[in-house]
Each structure stands twice: as C-alpha cells, then as structure tokens.
C-alpha cells in the first residue's frame, strides 16, 4: 500500500514540476543593486472571472503580452465565478509576494475582505471589466468599457435605422449587471432625444424584458416581445448571446426580415452574425485594449505617477462593412 502511494506521489511530483514554469528568477541583492542585473521586475497576479468565456481569455492574453514587454511576469488563475475561490487565490498571491493583483471581482461586494487583505499586505489591487462596489478595500484603478457611451452608440444606430419611419422597439435587458444598466441608459437617452424633435417618426420603446444575457433566455424574451407587439420594428439586445437568441426567436416566427437587431459586445459569434446579416451592428468592446491598459496603469503606478480611479475604453460601432474587412473572421 505504502509502496504504491509512494510511486504515485513520485510520478505526481514529476508531473507538477513539468507543468509549472521553471524559470525561477532569483536575484540576491545584498548590496546596492546595479541597474543591469534586473531580470524580472516582479510578478503580477490576475484572477479572472472565468477563462471559459473568450472575452476574459483575450484580456488575460493581452495582459500577459504587455507585462512581458515591460519585464514583468503574469500569473493567470481562474476563479470560475466563485468568490471563495477568488478570495483563496488572492491569499496565495499574497503568500507568493506578487507586486500587484488584478481581479475581475466575482461579486461586487463579497470580494471586499480579500482586497482589504491585499491592501494590508501592501499590494496594490486593480480591477478590470467588473467593478468592486464595496468600501472595505481600496482599488487603485478600474479599467472597463465605457458602457454608457456604447449604449449611446447603439441608440444612434437605432435612430439612423428608424429615421423617417419611426417604429416600435423592444429592449432585451440584463438588469442585474450594472454594465447593462448603463448600456440601456445611454440607448434610451438617445432615443428619447430623437423623439423630442421628431416629426412623426417617433421611436417607441414598447417593452423592456430580462433576457438573462444568455441565448436561451433571450430567445424567450424576444418571443414574448414579438407576441405582444406583432408590428415590432427593431430589438436592442444588451449582448451578443441574447441578441442571437432574439434572432432565433424571430426566425421561428418568420419575422427576421421585419425586425432588425442591434446587439452589444463584438464577441466572435456576434461579429460572425453581423457579417451574415443576422445582427445589424454592435457597439463593440475591446478586451485586448482593456488588458493592455490595465497593465499600463500598473506600470504607471510603480513608476510613481498618479493613476485615475477609473479608465473607460470607448466602444465603437461595428457594421457588416467592418466585418468584411475584419482579419479575425478570415481565419
């Protein structure tokens, strides 16, 4: 029995050593350091919300590239949406003595004690995409998409679409997420502004339904919306999955040519749908820029510069013409 377990452990040990990156950087600075011996300037720990969603994978990959460009290492771990896992990961970052911690908080409140613990250990904490809303710990800087401005872009695209004709519009919402609230707020403001000066081409928001930000829920919500308003002209969905769910709903009642969809995000599936004419356009997010910008803020902070508490990356509208030129879709 013991012999068997010893063998297993031995193999396991070899596996672990093989899996992990073995380039331990050890500098032994006794005396004043000379500038040219600096190999790694430090390690940044990143606990992502999840790595199964490509959005966060892109953020992580770009953070890694940017960090390595400036001589820092990046460790990426995935919290799989579980706050306790994330809190444990922060604890391990502290034990490892990382120079900075980046989080996508799994919960806008309960991650507070972990951030506070990092603060106490003197490690600066940054967040991206998802924001920490509590007041227990201090986040140096938060980097995210400018959702409010993105919502306005969607509103402008809607006004452009329905100018002269007007029509009924449904919103497929995900009210739990603050980011989606901002998107809808921007969208509604532009539409209302248009209505104030409209002459007979009023855009009427007839229903706002919860689509859960997911394809199946979006499908149901869109189906209800079209049932209640058979003369619907357009749908604004707060992300690509729920937009595509809405598209399926329209196809199931053969109304895809009557109702135009504007979604949000610019995920690969969304871009493909735009190319194929299933979605008119998306205000798109730039996870690559979010990732790079986060690392740049960390470097600025280490460099002694003041860092703004929040950096918002503007969104841009993405139509079929953009999709046809997009190298990402040509692979």
């Amino acid at each position, binding site marked *: 029995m013991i012999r068997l377990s010893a063998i297993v*452990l031995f193999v396991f040990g070899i596996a672990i050593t093989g899996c992990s990156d073995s380039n331990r950087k050890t500098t032994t600075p006794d005396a004043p350091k000379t500038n040219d011996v600096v190999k790694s300037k430090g390690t940044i720990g990143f606990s992502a919300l999840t790595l199964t969603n490509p959005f966060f994978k892109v953020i992580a990959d770009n953070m890694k590239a940017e960090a390595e460009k400036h001589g820092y290492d990046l460790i990426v*771990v995935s919290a799989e949406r579980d706050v306790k896992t994330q809190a444990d990961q922060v604890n391990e970052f502290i034990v490892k003595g990382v120079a900075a911690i980046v989080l996508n908080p799994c*919960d806008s409140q309960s991650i507070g004690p972990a951030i506070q613990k990092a603060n106490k250990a003197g490690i600066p904490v940054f967040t991206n995409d998802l924001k920490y809303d509590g007041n227990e710990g201090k986040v140096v800087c938060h980097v995210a998409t400018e959702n409010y401005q993105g919502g306005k872009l969607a509103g402008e695209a809607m006004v452009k679409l329905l100018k002269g004709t007007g029509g009924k519009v449904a919103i497929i919402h995900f009210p739990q997420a603050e980011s989606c609230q901002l998107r809808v707020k921007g969208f509604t403001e532009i539409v209302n502004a248009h209505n104030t000066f409209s002459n007979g081409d009023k855009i009427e928001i007839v229903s706002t339904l919860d689509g859960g930000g997911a394809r199946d829920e979006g499908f149901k919500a869109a189906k209800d919306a079209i049932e209640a308003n058979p003369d619907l002209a357009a749908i604004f969905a707060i992300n690509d999955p729920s937009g595509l769910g809405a598209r399926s709903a329209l196809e199931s009642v053969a109304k895809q040519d009557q109702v135009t969809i504007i979604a949000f995000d610019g995920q690969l599936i969304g871009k493909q749908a735009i190319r194929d004419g299933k979605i008119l356009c998306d205000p798109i997010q730039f996870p690559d820029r979010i990732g790079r910008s986060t690392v740049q803020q960390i470097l600025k902070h280490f460099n002694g510069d003041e860092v703004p508490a929040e950096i918002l990356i503007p969104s841009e509208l993405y139509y079929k013409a953009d999709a046809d030129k997009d190298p990402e879709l040509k692979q």
Partner: protein
Amino acid sequence: MIFVLLVLAGLFSILTLKQQHPTGEAAGRQVADFILSRYGRQARVLIVTRNTGEDIAFANVVAIRLKDAGAKVLDNVNGAAPDARRAIDSILASGGEIDAIAANDVTSKWPVYDRYPNVGSGKCVVPSSYLWPDFLKVSNLLGVANQTAIYAMIAIGMTMVIITGGIDLSVGSLVALASVGTAIMIRDGGGGANAGLVTVVGAAVAGIGICALAGAFNGFMITAFQIPPFIVTLSMMMMASGLSYRLSSGRSIPELPTSFFWLGRGETVGIPNPILLMIVLYIIAHVVMSRTVFGRYVYAIGGNSEAARLSGVPVNRILMSVYTICGALAGLGGIVLTSQLSAGDPKFGLMYELEVIAAVVVGGTSLMGGRGKIFGTLIGAFIIAIIKNGMNLKDVDPFNQKIVLGAVLMLAVLFDTLKRRNSRV
C-alpha cells in the same frame, strides 16, 4: 493516509523553495548598518517602504539607527510608488541629495527612482534574502487551513451520511441558503449593519436551524418512503438553491454588522477562528463516532442495514439524525463563509457537495458504507487543499489543476477498491 499528507507537504516544501525577502526589525538593522559602513556617518538616506505593519517596523528601525549614528534621514515614506515620487520631488526641489535609499525587495523594484538621473534604483539598499519554501510560510499554512476549514466542517456530516451508505448532494445549496437566510434576517429584522449581538447570534442559529430542518426533511423522505438518498438530496439541492436565489433576488446582501465577522475573520491566540471551530468539531465528532452508541449504530447501519434493524438498532431515527446533522453542519459552513466574505450570497456553495464528497472519499471512507474514520476525512480534506495550494504556488495552469485533482480522486477510489479486495481474501 497521514503518510500521504506528510509526503505531499514535503514535496511542496522542496518544490516551492524560493529566495525570501525579509522585512521587519532585524532586516532594518542590517540595512542601516550596511548604509553606515558604506556611506559613513554623513549619509543622506531616503527610506521607502509600503504601508504595512512589518514594513513600518523596518522603516522605523532604519530611521532610529541612522539618526543615532548621526546620519541624515531625508524622508520616511510608507506607501506606494507615487508617495515615493512626491518625497523625492520635494527633496530634490529643496536642493537635497540622496546617497542611499533604504528599501525592501518590493519597493526597490519600483522604476520610480530611474525617473531622476541622479537618483536611480542603483542607490537602493535591500536586506539580504534567504532560502525558504513559500509553502512552509506560516501565513500560507494558516491560509490553507483557513480555506479548508469550511469544507472540512461540512465533511463531518457527509462522512456520517456516507458511512450509513447514503449521500447528501444538498450541502452546497444549504450553504447558500444559510448564508442568504441569515443575512436577510439580519438586514430586515435586526437593522442590517447596526444589528446587535443578540440579533446576530439569533439569526445565525436560525440559519443553521433552517438547514437542519432541510436535512431532517431529507432524512424523513429517505426513511419514510424508501426513496434513494441520491434523488431526495438532489431535489433538495435544487429547491434550496432556487429558494436562496428567490429570497435574495439573485443579489448579494452586504448589510451585516462587524460583530458578525468575528467568526470567519477573527483570530484567537493568533489562529483564525474557523480553524479552531473546525478542530473542536472534529474532536467532538471523533468522540461521538468512536465512543458512543450513536456512533456504533451509524457504522452498523452502513455495514448492513437489515441486520442492524433486526438487532434492534433504531435505523430510521439514526438516519434522520445523521441527515439532520449533515444539514446543520452545511448551514454552519454557510454562516462561516458569509462571515468570512462579509456578505450573504446565493452564489456561495456552488459545487461544494463534490468538494466535500471528494474529501471524504480521499480520506478513506467507503462509498459503500460501513467503513470510514472522522479524522481520515480531515486528512482527506487537507490532502486536496494542499495539492491545490501547492499547484497554485507553482503556477500550474488552472486547466491542468482540474486534471490532476480528478486523477487524485480516481486514485483514492482505486485504493479503496484494492484495500477492500485484499481484506476480503
């Protein structure tokens, strides 16, 4: 089993061996002496550390020692890089010069010093490093124990259930239910963040009570109608999860008083309270399972339920109690977790049932029932925790970690099967 745990600990101690960079008083003395011997008593020194307890101790020792020797301390910065920049700016603006910067490993790596041509990070003096495994740092060991405490507590109830030959899949959802239930009672009934101690304790006990009731309901359905435990507790898992999402409308509830955080975040004699609670519970459970009639009955039911019944064991009553205990301990786990993370949240406890069952099985309890030890479960929980912790410390890719953990579980069951076969021969 304990042998495996020790070997793992040894393995990770070797694997995580790393240069450690000290800070604190001893390091401060070392750095101050080095500066004095190198730059003499006329040295003009800037001290840069972070704003942590140990770092400030380091900075103060450096400052006092240098001043006593007659050297000049230009400024003592305890903060982040921007604070260091401001300090250097003001020193240079008033015509000062810097001979050396007393720093530690982290602050010396800030690129801020290289902004100034006549400062530069070459002027940093840092304490010499020493070799020690990350794994064996006290903060890490306490961290691992603290992380495991909740799983381990719930695993006590699960061990009992599994020894009777059953299973309880509802524990993860009960963690969420206790968390949300207690937080809502405190928020709506006791004034949220201003709630008094009595309310807090009452709400926590009520939260555990709800989960005990849910556990009792499980036991009732299993004993009264002979429905397999797998199905009963699977249903309870869905109902409890749905209920906690419904009660909280899917949001977390942070309106809790600080007195509530004592259980999960407080310390007694330097050891985090969840660890102490876990130890106490394990001692009680061990005594109950090995020294009492109740414990004997639990094993007897798992060994052969029919034989136990014929020998006069009150099978139904014992099963009811076992499921009730399991539910109550899951509720307790939920309270500790809520206290640790300072909010009630329906998302808590996700997949905990599997974590806990894994701990029990790795700890040598047979899924067929009748065999297993309480302390085996504790060791099982720690084996899993140490493997996870060690892999995290060694930066193993998160996807590979899952593969390794799955393999460990598979091996544990394999051992169990082999042992069973050997003992039969």
